[in-house]
């Protein structure tokens, strides 16, 4: 067993975990499995890509790599802009599609179906605008440095893991300690009662999309930075995202992150045995095992 798989697993797990957090929040507060979530990752990466290009065109300083990383100042700035744009995309989609269906009292499964249709359209729109050709944030190559125990990692990779850890801790604190977090947990338990308590449920829903879409953008940028940017990048992550959210327990942020890490690590170790082409099957097997053995997930309460 090559210990390098641990590094690969942590990196993949970080991306999956961040994406799964947004998915699990939407799932618990809006009560539907959002098939478009993967596409928020992809759109986030592409928005950021376009903004990076724009900034790079403005001044070479934006593009010049900031040692020891492979990217320049332009990328984090562009990512902030990308987060805003991804949030707008999610809010628009909710206003135009999901919110309207909710207002009509549509059954959950109809909303899930709509999200499936919307995800197909979003993905194809990306392909139409950018073509299917893989893109990259940076051409600069990085050498992996030894970090102990026979493992190597590039500065970019370590940054990704670090940023993920910070984001998860921050998010966990927000959800458990802040008024917004309390309101979100209340709406997740009982939306009607939340109104009676004085909570503006519409605002909580907006907050959910904002947090979810922003995190998805960050996850997309990470995946784009470390691997590549393609229109199908989000869709290919959808099954691991769902598996991670369900494994961790719907509604649990630590659960989603832990689930993401478990899946990332499992994939990394499994491909050493069965080959990289079978990677996607790992998430499916984990999903099936969770549904068979403990459907409520690690931190879920009671039966599903």
């Amino acid at each position, binding site marked *: 067993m090559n210990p390098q798989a641990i590094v690969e697993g942590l990196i993949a797990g970080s991306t999956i975990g961040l994406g799964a957090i947004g998915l699990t929040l939407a799932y618990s507060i809006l009560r539907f499995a959002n098939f478009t979530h993967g596409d928020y990752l992809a759109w986030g990466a592409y928005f950021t890509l376009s903004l990076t290009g724009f900034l790079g065109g403005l001044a070479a300083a934006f593009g010049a790599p900031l040692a020891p990383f492979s990217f320049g100042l332009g990328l984090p700035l562009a990512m902030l802009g990308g987060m805003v744009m991804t949030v707008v995309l999610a809010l628009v989609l909710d206003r135009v599609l999901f919110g309207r269906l909710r207002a009509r009292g549509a059954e959950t499964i109809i909303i899930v179906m709509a999200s499936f249709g919307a995800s197909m359209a979003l993905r194809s729109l990306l392909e139409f605008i950018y073509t299917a050709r893989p893109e990259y944030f940076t051409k600069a190559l990085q050498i992996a440095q030894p970090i102990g125990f026979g493992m190597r990692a590039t500065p970019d990779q370590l940054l990704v893991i670090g940023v993920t850890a910070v984001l998860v801790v921050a998010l966990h604190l927000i959800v458990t300690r802040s008024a917004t977090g309390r*309101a979100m947990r*209340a709406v997740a338990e009982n939306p009607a009662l939340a109104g*009676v308590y*004085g909570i503006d449920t519409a605002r909580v829903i907006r907050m959910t999309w904002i947090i979810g879409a922003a995190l998805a953008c960050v996850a997309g940028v990470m995946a784009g930075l470390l691997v590549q940017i393609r229109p199908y990048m989000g869709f290919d992550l959808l099954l691991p995202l769902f598996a991670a959210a369900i494994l961790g327990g719907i509604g649990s942020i630590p659960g989603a992150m832990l689930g993401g890490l478990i899946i990332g690590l499992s994939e990394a170790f499994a491909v050493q045995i069965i080959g990289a082409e079978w990677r996607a099957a790992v998430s499916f097997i984990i999903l099936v095992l969770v549904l068979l053995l403990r459907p409520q997930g690690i931190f879920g309460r009671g039966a599903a």
Partner: protein
Amino acid sequence: MTSLRVQDLWAGYDPGLSIVKGVSFVVARGETICILGPNGAGKSTLIKALAGQVPVQDGRVTLDGRDVTGLSSHLLVRQGLGFVPQTENIFASLSIRENLQIAAELLPKAARAARIDAMFTAFPDLGKRPKELAGALSGGQRQMLAAARALLTEPEVLMLDEPSAGLSPKLVGQVFDTLAQISAQGVTLILVEQNVRAALAITKRALVLVDGQMAHDGPTEGLQDGAFLGQLFLGQRKGASL
């Protein structure tokens, strides 16, 4: 001086089907009234419509002269109209303190801690282990928390849907003692109740709803004997008019 004026209210879950059919009444400030009626009469639907939980289909509701018809629940709370549902009236997955903190958000920042402490003083059982999950509370304690949460924002009008439901006789007594104290502090109380005896003990005026319409609106004297009430419920006579 009127608190709540309800004019010709029609309400129901489905657009084509009304459960509350043209109900009108006025509640004066500081009054305590109960809403009685047989099962399926629409008592719960009426109070839920007033609380923003069931769609208002026609009619008008004014609170102290302000038109609050059809406002959503969270806006009604801000207008001073509090509501305690019959079941699922607290957040079991949040702690006792957090349940109160959510309500406290509606108050100015400076006042929040004081009001929460005031509730812990008024309901000592809740203050013992404030970090405990509300789901661990007993039935009676949950009702206490539900009431404390609603009282925290000092509502002008407080509506309760069957506060005695599912409680033992001793607890029912405690609940109604508390309600009597709340009323004594000047809060306008509207109670929907199945437990006629307990309701009549603390209210001076009763509204009787039968088949979604008002069958009686008058003083509670004379209602203690069940015969009159029974006849009202069965639609065999019309009671006092509004």
